[in-house]
């Protein structure tokens, strides 16, 4: 064995790192091959995922735990029953670069109680609910503002009026802003519930995960 340094009698033979041929290419942090001279970090996208799941204890915890431990950025998560009493639907809004979106869908589908996962098209119908409680000094004005947002007063007392507004996230944000003039005491909001538009299925009746597993993405939005 050659001793190329005094303090390391165990040195292995061979050209040193700077004497070796080097490959020229490069990948980005997502593992995609890229042009070394161009910055190519994919931008995050905001997407809505809908998961049809078995209606059984622990499913919500499974999903929440998955998104936490894999560090997916989650904006909202709702769960509720469906037309089938044995099945529930979880709607997730996440913000991730495209590889992260694909990974989130596949990891979600891998959970055993999850029946099907779909990324909804941008034209899908999604709604959130806000309950806004304001001071009752001018109930009529509160009611008419609620009507402008397509909502209504759902509770009124000597001191407070509570209105419900449904709609998209930007609309609800505008509404909460507008009600500030009456003195907002409390606001409660849900996450988004979403459903595919028209004859599209929110979750495929026949799961396409397996059928398309050979292609990337395996769970593809309708196109």
């Amino acid at each position, binding site marked *: 064995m050659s001793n190329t340094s005094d303090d*390391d009698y165990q040195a292995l033979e*061979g050209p040193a790192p700077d004497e070796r041929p080097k490959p020229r290419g490069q990948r980005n942090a997502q*593992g995609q091959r890229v042009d070394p001279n161009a910055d190519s970090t994919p931008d995050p996208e905001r997407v809505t995922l809908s998961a049809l799941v078995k209606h059984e204890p622990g499913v919500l915890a499974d999903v929440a735990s998955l998104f936490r431990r894999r560090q997916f950025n989650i904006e909202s998560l709702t769960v509720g029953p469906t037309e089938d009493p044995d099945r529930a639907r979880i709607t997730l809004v996440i913000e991730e670069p495209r590889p992260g979106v694909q*990974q989130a869908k596949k990891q979600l589908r891998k959970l055993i109680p*999850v029946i099907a996962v779909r990324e909804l098209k941008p034209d899908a119908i999604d709604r959130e609910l806000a309950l806004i409680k304001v001071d009752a000094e001018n109930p009529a004005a509160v009611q008419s503002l609620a009507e402008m947002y397509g909502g209504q007063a759902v509770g009124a007392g000597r001191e407070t009026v509570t209105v419900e507004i449904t709609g998209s996230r930007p609309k609800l944000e505008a509404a909460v802003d507008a009600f500030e003039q009456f003195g907002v005491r409390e606001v409660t909001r849900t996450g988004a519930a979403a459903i595919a538009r028209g004859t599209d299925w929110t979750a495929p009746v026949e799961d396409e995960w397996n059928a398309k*597993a050979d*292609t990337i993405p395996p769970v593809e939005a309708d196109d």
Partner: protein
Amino acid sequence: MSEQASVTPDTPPAEQSSEQPAEQESSESADDESFRPVDTGARSVIRALEKADIEYVFGVQGGAIMPVYDELSFSDQLTHVTMAHEQGAAHAADAYGIVSGAPGVCMVTSGPGVTNLITGIADADMDSDPLLALAGQVPTSFVGNDAFQETDTTGITDPITKHNIFSSHPDEVGNDVGAAAALAAEGRPGPTLVDLPKDVTMGETDVEPDEPSTPDTYEYREEPDPVAVKAAAEAIERADKPLLLAGGGVIKSGASDELRTFATEHGIPVVTTMPGLGSFPEDHELSLEMGGMHGPGYANMAISHCDLLIGVGTRFEDRLTGDIETFAPNAAVIHVDIDPSEISKNIEADYPVVGDAAAAITAINDAIDESPTIDDWRETVFEWKDDYPMGYPTPDDRPVQPEFIVEAVDEATADDTIVTTGVGQHQMWACQYWTYKEPRTWVSSHGLGTMGYGLPAAIGARVAADDEQDVVCFDGDGSFLMTIQELSVAVREEMDITFVVLNNEYIGMVRQWQDAFYEGRRTASNYQWVPEFDKLAEAFGARGFSIEHYDEAPDTIQAALEYDGPSVIDARIDPEANVYPMVPAGGNNVEFALEKNQL
């Protein structure tokens, strides 16, 4: 295996059946006195294990699991191996699963029984090993009340299991266990767990469990899509510098023969991952052995310079890839995996092929019309083998070098010898200097890196191995001390295992990193004193040996191997020995260091 391993019934079966109600004395059960119809949840659990063809259970008794243990005593099919600690039970079951391919089963009580199991479950999860964990739980009415030995078992194990089930009814518990056993082994294997509340296992039921099957929502694809196969095959035909990267999935799928046929038919060199050791014979000229952090230089040169990387059953873990941005930077990637979520998780796959490794390799090979023309590439790769030889010094003025011990044991044993290890320097020397030739002969903790894995794993491997196969455990002094209590099991069960402790009185890999990256400050890595392992072995009832000089190694190794029972060799190695080559964590594979000054 000694018959002591089986838990024998306290009362003979005949006496038991005389206690059965008269109406259950059907003619069928009268013919077969050992057949006991399901009457409780616990018996249903045992019946489900029997239907899943389980033969061995590694476990530790305790309050909440006692009803199941009591039923286990009546099973002719199941043999129980009583371990010293629950972590040992999990690792033994894990290793049993690696060697046999069937689910390894471990069984423990609630609370600390489960929390002691966690490391073993997490280890199986990281390495996709088929493991079924059965855990006792306090009665359902106590759950949530912080009862004695209660812990949130399903909550704690959710992130580290493929699936877990809180069993809620005696009628269903058998099928819960059956589903967990099937899930552990099917598709991409992994650990599953069933939480067994004591009222469920003690509760009455006459429901016989069904044949074990996975839940209807569990799907995976074995036969790959022909379009994906065609695209991959064409990429191989076009390639100038193709390289196969064989992962642990090749072994789990039983695809070693297919891989060998494919590689040799087209002359494509093969690098394996650490879990892939044994998937391709390392004495084959096309073998470049293990890639990644401590792989030989030629493996990492090939990875860095190939233009098509054919990854099979690998998840491109960071100890393999180093810096993602410099990993195989010129290579298009074919990625074969049974789990779609591994595709493009770490490295983007240009040609994804979802399916079973054996089926996919065969399909791709069938779809190739013409082998790629890669004589120049092969020549280059073979030159790298000459340029970057592995080796080690044997200076007279230094203690025995560890690599010498590994090679000496390899030479003294047959090709099908099973090697288990702990984690650290000794594990890397076992990777580098043992020549793996057959699948399911390498049993180690890859993803989680669990020190203390080697000893209990050797027990599980011994149970799963053929009687003629040797089982050798290379361990470090640090790793060996972490689970040394399991040596009592090997002695009690009269298991023929040879433990080789590469003893440097350091947590050697930490010491190596401290010397390289922390200016030699050896904080908390220097044990300064460790037990005399040969004498400790004798105290346990095993045979103890020691090696201090090169010339005594061959005879001592031979004597330890020939001893019919557990033997421990305390090999006093050079405490300053290091593992090279080395790619520092997050480094560029092509810049592997051949010595400390190159880091």
